[in-house]
């Protein structure tokens, strides 16, 4: 840098620059301010939406989590109860612990498997072959159906005692179980449904794979690196920011899953609480027991937990996520 500056004799001497520069900066500042204002004006529909639809209800629910609000009584009966709700959750609510257990089991198994599945399929679909576009669309299809009720109902039809899955097993002489109604298998059935919808992370992985410079593979080949080594020493490190991104989003989405568990268990979270995801417990408290204050407290504990997981991800990310611009 120093060298470049020195080779430009045409520049004004430093001593002469400050006054105009300050003036210019001031003008610049004013222009920027009005530009900024215009920016906010253009943003305002979104900002108002954020305030009214997200921020306000969130803060209200934070307030409600310290009250005995029960949905139906009018506002004058809402009483401040301090940390009572939070205390009850941790000390007197066996269903809370059950739902935490179910949600963690679900998350720790389903989310990694979903990422592995989506990465695996993305690797297969990354090769340019005839009809690969068709396959990409087909693998994405289940995700289009998303967390839909219809899909959950199909799952019920497929995995109950007389479902298509057992009919398939019986061809091989295997007698299947009543999967969705068996407390030991219901959650697994739910996980399969979640993992099967790997289209969104798959597409992101595909896009990430396209970004890996081919020279690296060529160079590796010249050096005689096996495909296996190429994958672990080129593909994975180059892909690590995308993996990080997918891991974060899938974790957050995964823990918030509600619809399929609700539909498949008919709203019970059963059998025997096997599919009682945390979100279902919140729902029960809010709409069956009308303990909306309590449910709000549950929701805030949930938010804090997800926030904590996110922080852990970000702080451990620097050890395994490699950014191509060399900032780290």
């Amino acid at each position: 840098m120093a060298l470049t500056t020195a080779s430009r004799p045409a520049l004004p001497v430093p001593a002469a620059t400050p006054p105009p520069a300050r003036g210019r900066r001031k003008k610049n500042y004013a222009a920027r301010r009005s530009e900024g204002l215009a920016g906010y004006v253009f943003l305002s529909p979104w900002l108002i939406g954020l305030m009214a639809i997200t921020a306000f209800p969130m803060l209200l629910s934070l307030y409600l989590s310290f009250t005995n609000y029960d949905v139906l009584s009018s506002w004058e009966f809402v009483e401040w109860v301090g940390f009572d709700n939070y205390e009850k959750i941790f000390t007197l609510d066996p269903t809370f612990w059950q739902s935490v257990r179910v949600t963690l089991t679900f998350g720790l198994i389903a989310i990694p498997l979903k990422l592995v599945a989506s990465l695996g399929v993305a690797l297969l679909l990354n090769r340019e072959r005839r009809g690969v576009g068709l396959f990409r669309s087909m693998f994405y299809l289940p995700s289009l159906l998303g967390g839909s009720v219809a899909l959950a109902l199909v799952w019920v039809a497929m995995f109950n005692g007389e479902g298509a899955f057992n009919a398939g097993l019986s061809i091989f002489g295997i007698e299947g179980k009543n999967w969705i109604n068996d407390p030991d298998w219901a959650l697994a059935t739910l996980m399969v449904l979640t993992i099967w919808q790997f289209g969104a992370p798959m597409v992101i992985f595909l896009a990430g794979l396209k970004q890996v410079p081919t020279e690296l593979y060529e160079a590796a080949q010249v050096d005689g690196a096996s495909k296996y080594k190429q994958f672990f020493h080129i593909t994975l490190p180059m892909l690590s920011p995308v993996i990080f991104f997918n891991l974060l989003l899938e974790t957050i989405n995964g823990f918030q899953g509600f619809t399929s568990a609700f539909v498949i268990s008919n709203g019970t979270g059963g059998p025997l609480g096997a599919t009682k995801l945390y979100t279902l417990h919140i729902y029960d408290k809010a709409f069956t027991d009308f303990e909306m204050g309590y449910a709000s407290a549950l929701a805030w504990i949930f938010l804090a937990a997800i926030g904590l997981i996110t922080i852990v991800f970000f702080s451990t990310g620097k050890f395994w996520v490699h950014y191509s611009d060399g900032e780290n």
Partner: protein
Amino acid sequence: MHPATPAPADEPTQHHGSLPAGGLNRRHLLRLLAGTAIAVPAAGLLAACGGEEEPAVDPNAPVTVAFFWWGGEARAKLTEEALKLYTSKHPNVTITPTWQAFTGYYDKLATISAGGNAPDIFQIDDNGLAEYAGRNVTLDLSKYTANKKIDVSKHPESLTKYGQLGGKQVAIATGENTPAIIYDKTKLTELGIEVPQIGWTYDQMITWGAGVTTKAGGKYWGLMDPSSDYKALWLWLRAQGKEFYDGPKIAFSEADLVAWFQLWVDARTKGATPPADVCHEAVTGSVATQLVVTKKAAVSFMWSNQLSEMQKATKNDLGMTAYPGDPKGQWARASTYWAASRTTKAPDVVADIINFLVNDVEAGKILGVDRGLPNNLDVRKAVSDALTDQKMKDTVAFENEITPKFGPAPAPPPKGHSGLRNTLRDIAETVSYGKATPEAAAKQFFTEAAAALA
């Protein structure tokens, strides 16, 4: 935030498509994340509330009344027709009917009632009545029953009482129904087994059920396992002269519950009922998943007014009789109620509409026995004579047969009941799945009940 940096409008969708050229860096990643909402929707959703507009009116000016119920297509047609008949007689009244399936009905009712904007008239059942009346959502109709604006003089007294809480008439029954077992007549005829009768004991019923299972060669079972069903437990208690609730408290003992659980453990051992995973399919009570409909059992534990609806879901001919045990355990129960909102702008009109629906013969003929037998005995007679649906006729015949055997009506279940029946369901299943003994389960139930009803 940096105001001068233009933010691409399509940022949130970017993660589905292309990534920034030259690979990802940290700034891109953060921007992608910022563009993707990572707030917990549950936190926001919980505080969201809805409302319905109700214009202010004076007595003769046009009135709009919001009207809300649950049910299927058929019920919607009947109800809308009856409401049209009312508005044709009262042109100043506009009724805006809204209906939906039972699933989600109470969620929606709760959300629109939040902050005191309940629909002017809404359907409710005894599982929800105390929750709403106890929180002062419902209009006190005592004034109207006293001045005969809502005439209950022709209604059975027990039905009227079943709509009273804390000395107030908080709702008016839409009709009468009773718990009833619905059995598969076709299958029993095939097997050559007699159909169940009113007044059978539980032991008789269970032995009979085991016989069905044996004769059917294990292709289906005799009985649904009703151990997780609050109404079956309630009737079983009442047949022995006991009760489910005493005011806001549980009226039966832990020993009672152990005996109840044990009864059905034994029934399963004898082969009268299917294993827990099969019963679990039917445990929410919805008609479509009942074991009689899915042909996995010969008997389901239902309500008397569900016969016609259930018949539509299966080709086999269905029959109906009382739950086992002394029929004095049964009572004239309000199948559902009409309740009014305390915040309605037109309470007189609302009372008049309710009166019309329960007392007008023409309205009664339109509504039939879809919400149970009409309360008004004159209407009941007229409606029964005019019925054409065979299964509805069977329902009437059954109700008429059992009515003289009824015991006195209990009070409607207290606040906290809707949660407690789920507790019973979940705990009874720990027994049927073999994860808990009847003793341990009963103990657990009383621990949780104490917290739920506190």
